[in-house]
């Protein structure tokens, strides 16, 4: 754990706002710009990262210095999905067992030297979050990035998430507004399907940095489903991700 320079939690109040997608895109972006990055999937009941990185069939290799993560698109990936017998097995575990596997992941995975470790959490404020943060107590988490969609229903849950981070003494690096705006491919009309701007207002209200907006792009959905990287072409989406990575870097440097 000490060989990792920066550890960032990716959290959200609500499910389905695009945490895992955001974690994978940020990780691939950071790798694209030359840093060493790893992602840890702490979402035990719904591990999405292996699919996003197209490494679902990876079997964990255990060496004397720990578990070796999968490597895809320049990113080291570790997820509980690698331990399941087949990709459709449900993980019906109660709290204590989930806690234990998370502790083992954090202790036993051999990441090597990393510049960034992104930790993709399940939505909300549950067992997994508590365990992750308490087991990382000795090795401090540098901060949390809150992902949300602009709609009211998602913003409500952010307040709880912010309170949670403050209670757990986790610095909030900022808020990312995902699925902000959709451009109709045939008439270029911009629809605010999930509304827009709400996250920025909330960030100002709580005096938290606003890291950026990310649009809803169907081609990204397709790429994610097949585990490919978006960085082969430059477009609005990749620009917005780059913007967020830059802002995260700025915020971390401010704290240190």
């Amino acid at each position, binding site marked *: 754990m000490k060989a990792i320079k920066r550890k960032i939690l990716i959290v959200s*109040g*609500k*499910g*389905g*706002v*695009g945490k895992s*997608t955001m974690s994978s895109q940020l990780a691939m972006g950071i790798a694209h710009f030359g840093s060493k990055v790893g992602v840890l999937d702490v979402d035990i*009941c*719904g591990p*999405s990262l292996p*699919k*996003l990185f197209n490494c679902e069939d990876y079997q964990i290799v255990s060496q004397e210095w720990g578990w070796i993560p999968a490597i895809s698109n320049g990113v080291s990936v570790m997820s509980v999905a690698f331990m399941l017998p087949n*990709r*459709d*097995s*449900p*993980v*019906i575990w*109660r*709290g*204590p*067992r989930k806690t*234990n596997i998370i502790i083992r992941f954090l202790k036993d995975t051999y990441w090597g030297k990393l510049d960034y470790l992104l930790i993709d959490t*399940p*939505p*909300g*404020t*549950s*067992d997994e*979050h*508590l365990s992750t943060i308490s087991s990382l107590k000795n090795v401090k988490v540098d901060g949390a990035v809150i992902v949300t969609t602009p*709609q*009211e*229903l998602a913003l*409500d*849950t952010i*307040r*709880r998430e*912010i*309170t*949670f981070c403050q*209670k757990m003494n986790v610095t909030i690096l900022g808020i990312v507004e995902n699925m902000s705006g*959709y451009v*109709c*491919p*045939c*008439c270029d*009309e911009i*629809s*605010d*399907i*999930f*509304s827009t701007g709400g996250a920025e207002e909330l960030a100002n209200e709580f005096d938290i940095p606003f890291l950026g907006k990310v649009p*809803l792009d*169907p081609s990204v*959905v*397709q790429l*994610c*489903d*097949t585990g490919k990287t978006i960085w082969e072409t430059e477009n609005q989406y990749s620009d917005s991700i780059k913007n967020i990575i830059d802002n995260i870097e700025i915020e971390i440097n401010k704290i240190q």
Partner: protein
Amino acid sequence: INLFWCGQDMLRWIAKRKPYPHQKRLIQYAYSADSFQSKKHEFEKLKQGKRKEASAPTKGRLTNMKHIIPIASGKGGVGKSTTAVNIALSLAAQNLTVGLMDADVHGPSIPTVMNLKGKKAIVENQKIQPLMNFGIKCMSTGFLVDEDKAMIWRGPMVIGAIRQILTSVEWGELDYLIIDLPPGTGDASLTLAQEVEIDGVVIVSTPQDLALADVSRGVQMFNTVNVPILGVVENMSYHICENCGNHSHIFGDSGAENMAKNMNLQFLGKIPLHQNIRETTDKGQPIVVSQPKSQFTQAYNSIAMNIIKYCTNK
């Protein structure tokens, strides 16, 4: 021996052989991973060398509720709460008595969607009174706790809250209880599945592969705990452009419909992605109530009719 990873038979074998005190503690810890309390008597009997067959937990039948329909999904953010509320309201429009229970303890959405944000539940005659709006009764932890308090609860507390909402709320006689489950296969879904007699689960998903992987896990979980699956709803199926009416499949095309066919599950219907649904939900004026003539309301109505058909044919 790493006792934590031992199977039940191994643990029994060790327990039978008069373990040392430190081993006893380790066995207890291993058992605690799967509700030690319920196995404690079994463990005690084992210590005396007697065997006891573990009995399957009996599911309770809540007599005041005719049909219990949880709305589940493998993945978060597919639109469970929006769908649950609109289905509940569609059923209510058929002159049925409907209750809506928010089992999502960490992120309760029902108060916002039902326009009851900031309201608190009152206790009368030692029972919690459900809040009413648009003709249905609803209850959520959102009515019991302040809006900005983070619900940092571990499993047992979540289970306790679910049990309380089921039994200590004055629901009265209900034709249907719609339960808005949290995403995934966590404590809330498991508790409900194991302790309550469920008519059938409605699974909501978006068409994309990423959601479907989680859905099939959810389906397997319900199969494992013997809960029947009513059917699958494909939400955010396609986006209808306001300007040109173009249908674009943002999250993929018919992914959930195909999966339902492959898994031999009934397909209940598609709901398109449209600003109107989100806007009305955010304002707390669900579309079934605020725009009863719209095509989206019709989509929810047809799903409600399928649910009624399923329940009356059982």
